[in-house]
């Protein structure tokens, strides 16, 4: 008489702990990480010991070491950027604006840019920094 082969699949049982671990890792990365945003050029912000955390819901201005600008990860010439910011601030005066300036950018260049922003109506600015290890 022929009985069907009912022996359990050994490989699947051995693989179950692996799947458990992989699922845990997956859930960890999904919850703990935030997706990186692609920036039009590389910006390495300065390192700082300050404690104030960054809230992501702000308008982000990128300023590269060579002086290029980007608004919300789109490359934009400075004049246009200032015009856009000026409109934004006029429409919603409490818009939070974060400046992600490269650590290697000459500080004078950044200060001059903040003066331009002041004339565009921006009163306070957040300078993004990386927490010191």
């Amino acid at each position, binding site marked *: 008489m022929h009985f069907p082969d009912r022996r359990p699949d050994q490989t699947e049982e051995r693989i179950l702990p692996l799947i458990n671990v992989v699922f845990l890792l997956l859930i960890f990365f999904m919850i703990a990480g935030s997706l990186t945003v692609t920036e039009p050029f590389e910006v390495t912000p300065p390192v700082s010991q300050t404690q*104030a955390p960054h809230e992501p819901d702000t308008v982000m201005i990128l300023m590269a070491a060579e002086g290029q600008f980007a608004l919300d990860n789109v490359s934009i010439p400075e004049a246009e950027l200032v015009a856009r910011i000026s409109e934004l601030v006029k429409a919603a005066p409490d818009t939070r604006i974060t400046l992600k300036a490269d650590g290697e950018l000459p*500080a004078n260049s950044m200060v001059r840019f903040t003066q331009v922003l002041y004339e565009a109506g921006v009163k306070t600015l957040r300078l*993004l920094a990386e927490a010191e290890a």
Partner: protein
Amino acid sequence: MLAPFSAPAKLAAKQARRKTVISLTPLIDVVFILLVFFMLASSFLDWRVLSMDTSAAGPAAPTDLEDFVVRVQGDDVLVDGAAVSLDQLTLQLTARQPADQPVSLLALGDTTVQQVVRVLDRLDAAGIQPLKVVDDPSWSASGSGAPADALP
């Protein structure tokens, strides 16, 4: 809707058996792909912000108090032309008279944002207020990097 009930018993049994036989391999494939995606796309950088008020260029509203000017040149900090350490600077500034005299950080030449932030951090941690970052009027962007102000 009625199909499962009206189907022959033999077929139903066959379907049930096939369900248990589904291999885990495709599932693992998908989960691995998701895992690798999230591992590569996640960022765990710890961002901080320094709040600053923007200010107009040139001398602000005239006050009777003159700013205590701290010049930052590269990694050096100069007070009245003499290099001081960050510790000495903090002491000098906490002892300044009057205690609410504004402190201006002036970056000389091509001093970078990082070098200014380092001094700023230190003074901020020492509770020195009010603190300003001002530009060097004689500075102008040089080299290939298009200066912010030179764009049309």
